[in-house]
C-alpha cells in the first residue's frame, strides 16, 4: 500500500518537478548561448547550472515538505486518506518516497544538463582529460549534495507542517514563533549530532584549475548527522500524524 | 411465483409496515394469485421487491405463520397453507374488517344501514346497465 500511495503522489506532483527542470534547462540554455565561452568560463558554466539547480531545489523541497498535507486537506482528500485502511507510517513514508524518486531523477537530469552540453562538448577542446575527469567528479559530488540536502529539508519541513496541523490554530503570530523556535532547534540539534560523529572523516575535494570556487568538502559527519536527523524527524512525523492529526 | 407479476406495495409510513405486508400477502391469497400450498417469495425476495427491511418482512411472515396463513418448510421456504378453506377464511375476515370500517365511516355521516343497502343495490344495478 505504501507503493500505491507513492505512485499516487508521484502522479500528482511530477508536473511541478518537470517545471522546475524546465526552468533550469531554459536558464542553462540561455546562459550557454549568451556568454562568450572562454577557457576558464567553460567549466564554470557547469557549476553555475548546478548551483542554480541547487538553489531552486532547496526552495522546492521546502515547499513540498511544508505543503504535502496541506494540499490534501484543502482538497478534502486528507479525510479520504484517513478513512482508508492506512496509517501515518504509510502516508508519511509514501510522500517521502515519492519525493525521493523525483529527486533522484532531478539529480540525474541536472547532472546531464550541467555536464554534457557545456562541459563535454566545449571543455573537451580546452581541458585535459584529467581535468575533465575531476570536473565530472566534482559535479557529481555537488549534485549528490544537493539531492541529500533537499531530502533532509523535505523531512524537516514535513515534520514542521505536521506539528502545525496538530496544534490548535492560534493565529499567524504563533505559527511564526513556532517556526523560529523549530528552525533554531533543528539547527542546534543537527550541530549536536554532527559533533557526535567526530570520528568520521572529512573529505575535501579540490580541483586544481579553480582555486577559489572549487573547494568542496564532503563531510561524512554531516552525512551521518543528516541521516540520523532524517530518521528521527520521520518517526516523529509518523507518531504525531497517527496521534494528533485529524480532519 | 415470479415477483415481476406482483404489484408493488405503496405502504403508509404511519402504520406498522409489517401489518401492511401481512395484508398484502393475504390479498394475494384471496385474489388467487397465491394458491394454497404454493411457495411464496422468500423474505429477501419480498424485501427487495417491496423495498422494505428484511427484518420487517420476517416479522410479517412470522405473524402470518402464527395466524396459520402460511407455514415454513425447513430448508425449502415459506408456503401458503394447503387447506383450501384458508382462502375463504381470510376472505371472510378481510371482508368483515373492511365493511366494519366503512360502516362506521358512513354511520358517522348519519346514514343508517338500510340506506346503505339501498345505495349499494342502486349502484350495482347502474353498473350492470
Amino acid at each position, binding site marked *: 500500500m505504501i507503493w*500505491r500511495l507513492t505512485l499516487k503522489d508521484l502522479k500528482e506532483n511530477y508536473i511541478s518537478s518537470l517545471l522546475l527542470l524546465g526552468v533550469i534547462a531554459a536558464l542553462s540554455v540561455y546562459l550557454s548561448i549568451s556568454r562568450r565561452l572562454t577557457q576558464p568560463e567553460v567549466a564554470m558554466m557547469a557549476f553555475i547550472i548546478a548551483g542554480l539547480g541547487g538553489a531552486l531545489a532547496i526552495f522546492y523541497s521546502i515547499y513540498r515538505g511544508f505543503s504535502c498535507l496541506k494540499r490534501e486537506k484543502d482538497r478534502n482528500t486528507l479525510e479520504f486518506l484517513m*478513512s482508508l485502511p492506512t496509517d501515518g507510517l504509510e502516508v508519511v513514508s509514501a510522500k517521502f518516497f515519492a519525493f525521493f524518486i523525483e529527486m533522484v531523477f532531478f539529480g540525474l537530469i541536472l547532472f546531464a544538463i550541467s555536464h554534457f552540453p557545456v562541459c563535454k562538448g566545449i571543455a573537451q577542446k580546452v581541458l585535459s582529460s584529467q581535468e575533465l575527469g575531476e570536473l565530472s567528479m566534482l559535479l557529481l559530488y555537488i549534485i549528490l549534495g544537493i539531492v541529500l540536502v533537499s531530502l533532509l529539508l523535505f523531512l524537516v519541513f514535513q515534520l514542521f507542517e505536521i506539528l502545525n496541523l496538530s496544534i490548535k490554530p492560534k493565529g499567524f503570530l504563533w505559527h511564526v514563533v513556532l517556526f523560529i523556535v523549530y528552525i533554531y532547534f533543528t539547527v542546534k540539534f543537527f550541530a549536536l549530532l554532527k559533533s557526535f560523529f567526530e570520528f568520521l572523516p572529512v573529505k575535501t575535494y579540490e580541483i586544481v584549475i579553480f582555486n577559489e570556487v572549487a573547494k568542496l568538502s564532503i563531510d561524512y559527519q554531516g552525512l551521518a548527522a543528516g541521516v540520523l536527523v532524517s530518521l528521527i524527524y520521520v518517526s516523529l512525523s509518523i507518531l504525531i500524524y497517527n496521534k494528533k492529526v485529524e480532519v | 411465483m415470479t415477483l415481476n407479476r406482483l404489484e408493488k406495495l405503496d405502504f403508509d409510513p404511519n402504520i406498522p409496515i409489517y401489518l401492511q405486508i401481512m395484508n398484502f400477502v393475504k390479498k394475494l391469497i384471496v385474489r388467487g394469485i397465491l394458491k394454497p400450498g404454493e411457495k411464496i417469495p422468500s423474505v429477501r425476495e419480498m424485501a427487495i421487491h417491496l423495498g422494505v*427491511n428484511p427484518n420487517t418482512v420476517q416479522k410479517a411472515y412470522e405473524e402470518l405463520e402464527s395466524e396459520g396463513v402460511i407455514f415454513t418448510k425447513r430448508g425449502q421456504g415459506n408456503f401458503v397453507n394447503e387447506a383450501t378453506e384458508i382462502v375463504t377464511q381470510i376472505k371472510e375476515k378481510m371482508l368483515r374488517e373492511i365493511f366494519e370500517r366503512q360502516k362506521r365511516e358512513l354511520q358517522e355521516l348519519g346514514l343508517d344501514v338500510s340506506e346503505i343497502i339501498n345505495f349499494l343495490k342502486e349502484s350495482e344495478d347502474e353498473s350492470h346497465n
Partner: protein
Amino acid sequence: MSPTIEVANLYKKYGKIVALANVSLSIKEGQLVGLCGPNGSGKSTFLRILTGIVKPTRGYINILGDRPSKANRKAVAYVSENDVFYKWMRVEDHLKFIAGFYEDFNIQKAFELVKAEGIDPKLKVGELSRGNRQRLKVISAVSRSPRILLLDEPFSGIDMVSRERIMLMVRDFLFEGGRTAIISTHFVEGLEGILERVVFFKEGNVVLDEICEELRIKYEKSVKSIYFEIFGGEK
C-alpha cells in the same frame, strides 16, 4: 452477542464548540439505523469518530471488538458528504487505487455499476457531475464487502434521479444480509421502509432512539412526522 458498534459517554469538543455531548449508543449486527438531525447536531462528527478520522475528546468506542483502527477500517465503509476525490484521477484509476487497499474489492462489480450508471470510466473525476460523483462514492463502497456501512448524507444536494439510483444501490447492498449500517440523512421519506431504527441528534445529544415499527405501533407516526415534531415546523 456483543454489539457491533458501541459508544458510551462520547464527548467531542472543537476548541470552544461542543460537537458531541455524552452520546451513548449500542448497535447490533445487521441493524439498519437512520441518523437524523439538523446541520451541526453532531451526526457527521459521530460517523467520523466511528471511522477513526476524528478522535474523541473522551468517551468509549468499540467497533467490531476494537477501537477505530487501521485493521477495523478494512471492514468499515465510510461515505463522506464531502467531495473526497483526487479529481485528476480517471474513474478507472480511482477504482483501481481503492482496490489496492481492500482485498474484498470486487473491481468487476465496480466497473459494471459504473457502466450501469452511465459513467464513462475514462473521464477524470473532476469532469463528472455532482450526482455522478456521489454515485461513484457509493459504488466504491458497495463494491466491497464491509461489515459496517456509514453513510453521511448520501442523498443531499443531488438531482432526484441520482438520489433514486443511489437509494437502489444502497438498498440492494444492505439487503444482502450481514451488513450493519448507519445512514445520516434529511431524506427520511425514501428510507421509511428500509430503516429498522432511528436515532435523532440535537446539539450533540441523542434526543430519540427508537425502533421505527415501534413508533408506528405505539404512536401511529412515521419517521418523517417524528422528525417534524422534534425539530419544529408545522405538523
